[in-house]
């Protein structure tokens, strides 16, 4: 029945597209609304289909967007996707705000040192493996052609930074999708956030160093100042935004959802225009709310009702923008880096977890939780892009991110099922939408 519904929806969309032969009409408000509705329904239907075979729903959302998007069936035109990017831009900081609000340092305190150890070891190992493989295979990577050894090595390290990044958004979505609860998912969520912050800081340092090695020191200073503003400014603005959010919630009992959406809008639209990173800003706001105030659980409760629509919209639109065509263009190079990334992250996690004394399931399977990637990697790639001689590096990174976005969640879900944490999330944390009238939404533990 759901397959039939998917087919019917596709036919309806195709029929509607026939009405307006000029593709420009698709970028108007009607086209954007139509494509948004079509993507939401298609993604939810596809998600429910694949959930029956154990595949994460967000993978289905991505696949659905990719299949109906401009690269495959073209039911959603490039102009429509461009119009929908606004919603994707709003969704990314919204999910980052949610991820930050989930991170409660006092509860992590007993294992904070261990988490930091795992984070550092994992990041260093991953960067080393990826840059090593990229350097060894530099003959197959066109953007490294003609560079001397030092220059090639520097660029290899730069490309390893965004490729090491994981995705707080995907981790949160996977946790909710699998209804997982336990030490593995808590460890992965904490380390994903710490990794993200560490990588942003490393990028802020590495890019000016690379610029200094390649050009005049003046350029390096300018770039360093810009990236320092991006990093520290985002964190500072994020804390300020969190402060304002807390003040709003204390004054008014309702409206938390609206304020969260407003904050996401401000981060998405204002941030890039004044040189800030929306994800880091929203992440910092969420962390401040959870750890600097007592309003963290209330924020999570207020944001819960619109979380699912945001997930579906974000991942389905992201799927529609996956450059499937670039897979064939970058070919072997992308495959090599995907493998190198997986090996580096898993090995690094295991080494770090052994040092931290993590329990066995966490040590064996936690590395798989770092495999999914999404917007953070692309955002970091945009920061390092200027260091590369041409755009083939960005295409390569995009291909790797796309592959990891599709395959990573499947592997992570397998890990959650294997260690028995899937389906253990208590029912009291679920939304009141699940048909039980008058169900109380109990707050997440502090």
């Amino acid at each position, binding site marked *: *029945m*759901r397959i039939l*519904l998917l087919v*019917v*929806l596709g036919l*309806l969309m195709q029929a*509607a597209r*026939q*009405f*307006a*032969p*000029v593709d*420009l*009409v698709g*970028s*108007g*408000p*009607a*086209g*954007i*609304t*139509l*494509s*948004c*509705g*079509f*993507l*939401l*329904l298609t993604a*939810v*239907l596809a998600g*429910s289909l694949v959930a029956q075979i154990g595949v994460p729903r967000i993978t289905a959302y991505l696949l659905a967007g990719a299949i109906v998007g401009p690269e495959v069936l073209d039911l959603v035109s490039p102009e429509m996707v*461009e*119009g929908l990017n*606004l919603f994707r831009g709003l969704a990314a900081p919204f999910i980052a705000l949610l991820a930050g609000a989930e991170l409660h340092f006092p509860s992590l305190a007993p294992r904070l040192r261990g988490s930091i150890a795992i984070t550092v070891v994992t990041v260093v190992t991953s960067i080393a493996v990826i840059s090593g493989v990229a350097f060894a295979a530099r003959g197959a990577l066109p953007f490294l052609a003609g560079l001397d050894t030092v220059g090639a090595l520097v660029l290899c390290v730069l490309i390893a930074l965004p490729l090491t990044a994981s995705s707080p958004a995907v981790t949160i979505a996977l946790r909710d999708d699998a209804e997982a609860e336990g030490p593995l998912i808590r460890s992965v969520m904490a380390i994903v956030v710490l990794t993200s912050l560490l990588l942003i800081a490393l990028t802020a340092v590495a890019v000016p160093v690379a610029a200094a090695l390649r050009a005049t020191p003046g350029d390096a200073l300018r770039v360093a100042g810009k990236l320092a503003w991006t990093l520290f400014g985002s964190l500072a603005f994020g804390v300020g935004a969190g402060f304002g959010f807390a003040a*709003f919630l204390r004054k*008014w009992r309702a*409206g938390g959802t*609206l*304020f969260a*959406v*407003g904050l996401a*809008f*401000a981060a998405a*639209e*204002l941030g890039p*225009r*004044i040189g800030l990173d929306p994800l880091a800003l929203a992440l910092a706001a969420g962390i401040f709310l959870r750890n600097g105030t007592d309003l963290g659980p209330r924020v999570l409760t207020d944001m819960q*009702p*619109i979380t*699912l*629509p945001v997930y*579906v919209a974000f991942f389905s639109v992201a799927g529609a923008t996956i450059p499937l065509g670039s897979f064939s263009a970058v070919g072997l190079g992308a495959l090599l880096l995907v493998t190198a990334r997986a090996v580096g992250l898993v090995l690094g996690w295991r080494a770090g977890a052994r040092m931290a004394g993590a329990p066995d399931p966490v040590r064996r399977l936690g590395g798989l939780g770092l495999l999914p990637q999404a917007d953070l990697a692309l955002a970091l790639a945009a920061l390092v892009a200027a260091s590369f001689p041409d755009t083939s590096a960005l295409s390569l990174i995009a291909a790797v991110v796309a592959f990891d976005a599709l395959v990573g969640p499947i592997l992570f879900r397998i890990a959650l099922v294997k260690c028995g944490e899937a389906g253990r999330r208590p029912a009291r944390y679920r*939304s009141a*939408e*699940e*048909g*039980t*009238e*008058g169900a109380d939404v109990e707050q997440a533990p502090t």
Partner: protein
Amino acid sequence: MRRAILAALALVVLVVGVADAARTSHRKTAAAEKKKETKKKKKPAAAKVVRVADAGPADDEAVAAEVPPADAGPADAGPAAAAAAGTAQPPETLAIPVPVPIPIERATKPAKVGFKLEPAPLPPARVRRAPTALEVITAIIGLVAIVGMAYLASHPKVQELEELLGITAVVTAGLPFVLFGLIAHSKQIGILSGSVLQYLHPFIPLGLGWIGFSIGFRFDVRRLEALPRGVGPALLLTSVLPFAAIVGACGLILLMTDGLGHGTFLRDAIILGTAAIIGVRPPAPNPEGPSADRIAPLVQLQEGCAMIGLVLVAAFWRPSGHEVGWQLPAFAWIFVTLGMGTALGAVIYAVLNAFRGRAEITVLMLGSIALAAGMASFLRLSPVAVCFIAGALIFNFPGTWKEQVRVALVKLERPIYLVFLVVAGAMWEVTAWQGWVLLLLFVAGRLVGKVLGVFLARESRLSEQLHIELGGLNHEERVRIALAPMGALAIAIVVSAQDLYVGSTVSWMVTTVIGGAVATEIVTQLILRKLYPDAYAVPLATESPSGLAPQPREATGTFARIAEPIDTSRPPPPPPPMPPPRLPGVDRDPDEGWS
């Protein structure tokens, strides 16, 4: 009752058809005259005349008969064939024309049923200009101002002022957000710049779709059938008269100011008339407790008529131009609208059945409304009407998920409807004086029409002449109908028109209806307080800002309680006794009604 509805429908179609025929014949006559003039100027080159030595009348002119255009719709006579004017020829010569094939004008245009409009508005440029940092900052300030406004609106002092001015109902319906959008978009303030507005523009079809779907989702056909005798025809009379008054008065003014044009004066008059008929004043609180409201179904009747009006307008006045790929006759567009609404309703029904009782209901409803509204708007049809059909179909078919759908619609209302109002306000042009002049006619025509309709509904002589049962309304019901405010749907109707059409008259209509809503509320409140204080009631705050969201099942009694488990240990209770069948011609108590 059914005959009355069919008669009203036939009347509307007749009016539109007559106007179209008149318009078409006027154009044909003008075209024929133009062709004659063109023919006279041109030298006949369509045929060679060969003079042959024979007797008989011949023609010096081109004699090849002009073939009438192949795109004939209703009796397109086309220019008359050029008559061969015989002229006397010398007996020794005979001119026999040698016909040269003349290209036949092929049917490149659709059948001429419907009105051709100015070309559709140009789509936005392929490259959007992204907002600057300053624009984003001002937009954020605007958002903060919206939150502040919402806070102020709940302040007791502000509410006292609203009650004093008699605009509580309009404020509750969200009018301040319209005004905010208007102010925010002004050049002097500039909070909502053009580029920011471009980002928010998709909320227009989404908001219209939500409104249509919500209205459809409370359209209970069974309530209409249960109307007591005498109430239905009376309700119809009180709707047809204001409609006719508005169409007549405003149509005349629009014709005088805007001219015949492409018949848009009639389109705009019908839209205004449709917006005018909607609204019933809520009952005054009963100290003895809530009682059955017999004329509550009137709102459904009015909304149904409004949807019919929207379907007809969107079908008969179609955009043209290279952006539009389908060229169909107007009646075909009616079928497309009905078919689209039905098909989408069936798809949404199937989707909801596939996800019974799951957490995805909200996102499914959001996606369904966006799909239906976007598709309708994409095909230049009315999103309100299409989503209404889909919502009505879903509501009137069985399903255990209805309460969840209702809750989802209520949850979606605030974010969608309020932003919709802000964007609608930003698109409103208040500077055209014609809109304010029309406003006076609109308010007066609406009030007079409703009062006249209520008055005539009391007349037993009219009842005897028309052979229908009138006089079923009591005093309070007549007051509530005559002094009815305008609902949020009226605003949606003109915003829908703004979404479909371009032209100066469209902005006039927006001014007329929005301003008319405020003026109507002020005037009726004054009359109520002076003359009918018993019927006066301060509108109660509800969870629905627009008043359009479906009510909880306790208010309608139509939803099944899905939370209660079915007790299978006991036999089911016997069904209630069926009421006796209605016998024709038997008098019934006019107060016997639906409860």
